């Protein structure tokens, strides 16, 4: 069975050809984006190790993501996550006025590698912040 290929035009990267094997299904969408269900994860050479979560339904929408352990090596998301099968990444926000980069450590995006599904979960504990500043220290 041939792999479905989709062409999308993204804001950041222009035209991309996406294979079905790259698509993650987000049944609940993302918080604030309930109607977006199909995403791909894009690597772009100059912004590695960041990745971009691009919406297939609205390819102008893309979220910069980063592995939380790049920010806090002792990050412990807790028992609700199965780190053998699930990859966690956090959403990065840039605050241009202050030149700050912050990460939402409290509501990571979870990718299930086997099922090709994704979801965003808010941790119940107050241990982590929605606005963790990323600095050189």
């Amino acid at each position, binding site marked *: 069975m041939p792999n479905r290929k989709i062409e999308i035009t993204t*804001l*950041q*990267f222009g035209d*991309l*050809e*996406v294979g079905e*094997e*790259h698509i*993650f299904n987000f049944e609940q969408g*993302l*918080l*604030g*984006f309930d109607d977006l269900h199909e995403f*791909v*994860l*894009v*690597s*772009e*050479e*100059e*912004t*590695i*190790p*960041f*990745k971009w979560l691009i919406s297939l339904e609205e390819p102008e*929408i*893309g*979220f*910069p993501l980063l*592995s939380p*352990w*790049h920010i806090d*090596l002792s990050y412990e998301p807790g028992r*609700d996550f199965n780190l053998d099968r699930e*990859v*966690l*990444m956090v*959403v*990065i*926000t*840039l605050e*241009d006025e202050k*030149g700050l*980069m*912050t990460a*939402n450590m*409290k*509501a990571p995006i979870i*990718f299930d*590698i086997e099922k*090709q599904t994704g979801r*965003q*979960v*808010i941790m*119940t504990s107050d241990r982590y912040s*929605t*606005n963790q500043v*990323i*600095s*050189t220290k």
Partner: protein
Amino acid sequence: MLVLSRKIGEVVTVGSSVKVTVLSFDRGIVRLGIEAPKSIPVHRKEVYDKIIELNRQASKTDLSSLKTAMSKVGLKFRNQVNEGKVAPSLKFSVKKQNIEEEK
């Protein structure tokens, strides 16, 4: 909005699986106990709203802004060596192809 009055210790049910109990009221602060299945997330509204706002802001990020921000943070990411805990390289990421490469 449905408005109900409850005394301390009384319960409100939402659907068949959510129960909200008024635990205490002291100096203007109400403590609520909420029982809900794991499939139904329960959070303070302002946390929820904050995350929606952060997602919205992030969704508009363009490539050059991220590059600029990365250069300000410096070499921090390049020097990360700790392979064990870093997310495994995701084989399902789509690499941006150089136009030259395709030709």
